[in-house]
Structure formats: C-alpha cells, structure tokens
C-alpha cells in the first residue's frame, strides 16, 4: 500500500500533553493546535471517505476540533483526545448523512456523486470498489473504513463506534459479504 503525507498512523503517535493541568486557555490553545497539526489530514480523509465531498469533510473536522477546544477543561485524559476527535468526526459524518437523507426525502446512501474527472484519474477499478463501499449502510461503511483505512484493531473500532467487539466482527463480515456480491469476489 502506498503511503504519503502524515496519515492515520500519525494520529497514533501524538505528543503526550505536558502542559499544566490547570486548564489555562493558552495551554488548551497550544494543545489543540498541536493536535490539529498532527491529525487534521488523517481525520479529514476519514471524513472524506465517509461523506465523499471535501467541503463537508472539512466542516465536520473543524466542528470536531471546536468541540474539543470547548471541552478541553473537561477532558479527563487528554491523551485520549484523538479517540474523542475520531468519535466526533464519525458522529459529525452520521449527522451530515442523516441530514442529506432527510433533505432529499428518502434514504439515499450516496454522498455527492464522484466527479467524472475523478473516475478517470482514479482508475475504474478503484472507483468500482469505492462505489460499492459507498453503497453499504453507514455502520458497515464505518467499520470498513476504520478497519482497512485507519488500520484500527477491532477493540478500538468498538470503542470509537460504541458497539461491542462481536458486533464489529459481524458487521465487517456482512460488509465484506455484500461487497463480494457486488464485486463478484469471494469475501
């Protein structure tokens, strides 16, 4: 797999916060800024995979960081900020997808369609897989993205999605089965 700019892996090697625990605004500023620097690209890409459009992905990530900034004083363990951010981004994505569905008056699973240019540049095969992933129910899509893009173990996926590990496994299994049917491959 190709690796380029700081990606999801970067989010697991966060600097430990060594700021004083008094919750001073300056320390929150610095910590949130450092977290933003280290994680914004990975989180934006996570949101982009869930939503399919860049502007919504950016908004969801900004909202997650604003939420972190507001709740910084109440964060019991600041080393878990990345988990908090990841959950917030996924919640934000769910909310955008719900809003899209209700605005269109029906449950449309798809985010804005892929551009024709992206289809040509990205390769038809890859787009076929992405279209199939986008066609999955939200929860299955989340599990696949967290497992195969973020490389999270099932335990962490369960924690981020607030479901049981067994549910993660069964959801992933169902998602792969569905993909296999669409793509005519053995899961």
């Amino acid at each position, binding site marked *: *797999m*190709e690796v*380029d*700019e*700081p*990606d999801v892996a970067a989010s697991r090697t966060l600097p430990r916060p060594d700021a004083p625990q008094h919750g001073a*605004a300056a320390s929150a*500023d610095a910590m*949130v*800024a450092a977290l*933003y620097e280290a994680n*914004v*690209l990975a989180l*934006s*890409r*996570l949101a*982009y*995979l869930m939503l399919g*459009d*860049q*502007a*919504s*992905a*950016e*908004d969801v990530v*900004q909202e997650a*960081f*604003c939420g972190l*900034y507001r709740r910084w004083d109440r964060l019991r363990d600041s080393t878990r900020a990345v988990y908090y951010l990841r959950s917030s981004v996924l919640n934000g994505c769910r909310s955008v997808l719900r809003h899209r569905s209700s605005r*269109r008056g*029906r449950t*449309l*699973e*798809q985010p*804005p*369609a*892929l*551009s*024709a240019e*992206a*289809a*040509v540049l*990205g*390769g038809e095969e*890859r787009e076929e*897989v*992405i*279209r199939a*992933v986008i*066609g999955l129910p939200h929860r299955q899509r989340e599990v*696949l993205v967290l497992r*195969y*893009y973020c490389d999270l173990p099932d335990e962490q996926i369960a924690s981020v999605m607030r479901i049981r590990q067994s549910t993660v496994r069964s959801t992933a299994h169902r998602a*792969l089965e569905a*993909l*296999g049917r669409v*793509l005519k*491959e*053995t*899961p």
Partner: protein
Amino acid sequence: MTPLEDRVRQSLAGKAREFPPGAVPPLRRPVRRRRFFSLAYGGGERKEAPASRGWLVPAAAAVTVAAVIVGSATVSHVLHQQNGAGTSVEAAAARNEAASWVAAQVSRSAVVSCDPVMCQALASRGFSGHLDEVLPGVIHIWPSGVIVATATVRREFGGDLNSGYAPGIIASFGSGSSQVDVRVIDPRGAAVYKAAVSADLRSRKLGGAELANSSRITAPAIAWRQLRAGRVDARVLTILTGLAAAHPLSVVAFGAPGPGAGAGSPLRSVEFAWSSEAPGAGRPGSMRAIMAFLNAQGAPFRPAQAAVIRLPDGRAVVRAEFTAPSPLGLLGPGRHTGS
C-alpha cells in the same frame, strides 16, 4: 488477508489521497464567551476581618454604589458586544456555506468575483477557477461569470448588483445583513440578461414538452410537470434526448437548484436509468453505457459529477449533475452563455 480485503484497503487509501494535504484549512477556534465575574476566591482562604473603623462603612457603601453603576454599564456594553458577535457568527456561517456551495457547484471555467475574505475561503476549499477580487474603492470591470455578494460587496456596489450587471440570483445563504447571494454577472446589463433568460425559458419549455411527449421516456408526474414548465436545465434535456435516441429511459427525478434560488432556476441534476423495455436493463453493468456516454461529452454537456447510485428500493440509477450557472441559449438560436 483475502484478496477482497486487500482490494478494499488499497481502494480506500487511493480514494483518501484525493483529499490533498494542501486543502486543509487553518484551525477555526470557537468564539470564547466572556466571563463577567470570577467566582473563585484567591486560594480559597478567608482572612479575619480587621477591627471596625468608623470611616469603613460609608466608604464601603460608596464603593458598592460605584461598582453597581460601573457594573451595569459594563454588562450593557458587553451584551451589546455579544449581539455584534452573534451577527458576525451568523455572517461567518453564511460565508462558509456559500464558499462550500460555490466550490462544489460553480463551473471551474467561470470567473468568480468576491471580496478578499470570500476569495480566500474559496481558495482554501480548493476552488480552482479564476478568482477576481473586488477591492473597496477600486473601479471594477465586470467579467462574465459569477459574483458572491457579501455585505462587503453590497456596500461597494449598492443597487448596481440587482439593477445593473448581476441581476440573477442562483443561490442564497443567511439572512439580513449576513446574507450572501451568489449572482450571475452579465456584463451587457440586466435588460439583456433578463431577455436571454426569458428566451432560454421558452426554449426549455419547447424542448421539455418534446421530451414529455416522447414515448422513449417514462417519468413520475412531477418530472413531467417540470419538463413542460421549462424547469429543467438545457444540458440535462440534451443528454436525455441523446440517450433516449439509443434506448428508452426511465427518469426518476430532477433536482439541484441552488439553496434560496428563484423558482425560475433550472434544475441541473437528473437521476435516471434505462427503462425496463431497454435490452439488458437491470443487469449489472448496464449503467456503464450511460456513464461512458456522459464521460465522452465535451463542455458544456459533460456533467461535473456523474455516478451510479442505488435507490432505497434497490434500483441502480445514474445521477448526473451539471455546474452552475446554467448556460443560456443552448437550445435556441443566438446562443449565449450566462457563465
């Protein structure tokens, strides 16, 4: 790891790289609320009160009265400031919504005029079209394209926008002084633009009625009405006509007018599939011919976005969406494009 899992992993990684590192905007911090009073005592310890002195009581009373007067003035001032902050938050929200909409919907070939803040917001969202900065006090030459009318731009041009060169609103966000309109510019002036819009509507009505009467297309009643009323964009009518010549089509819906756009704004997107009478309809891959047709189109008939999507009832359809603003005069004589 199975081959399928590997394929999913590689496809997701490849798709994620479509989000370029340079597209990440700077961190926006939430507005910090002011605290009027601090409830914490220094160190939490109280000192014993000193022995009573005669002058202390009147002095304390005077200080209290003064504090009340100063306090009420401060509260009033801060509340006033907060109202201002509320307005600026609304303005920022409308600006962000407008920037996202323009970046996603407006044609890359259109020149977009904007104030410096809006231009920066568009650039940060990866808008790759030409941005034309409107600078206060500088004589502006109207290019053909789109203007994002924020409060700053309205202050600069006043009524000239509506009655002069940018009479058509294609999308609108926010309200009051925070309102941001996305307008079409026609350097030939409002009268010529309005005449071109009327002529285009007539052509779209004729073209739509022709499609509605065709036995090659099936559609729900609302779509028939939209076709006959000329609500459907000329580019959508053209691709549907082209495809229907090959096989019968089933139109599901038209959509995508800009938020807050006038009722006359053409519908720039369509969801459709081969009709069940078409040979091979419903088979996997039957949409490839449609996608190939769409991708083979040149400007202005190539959709900005096109993909196969699945409806809640399980049907696979193609969704094609064209950029704003809708070009004028594509169907009739005296061709003129509004973009």
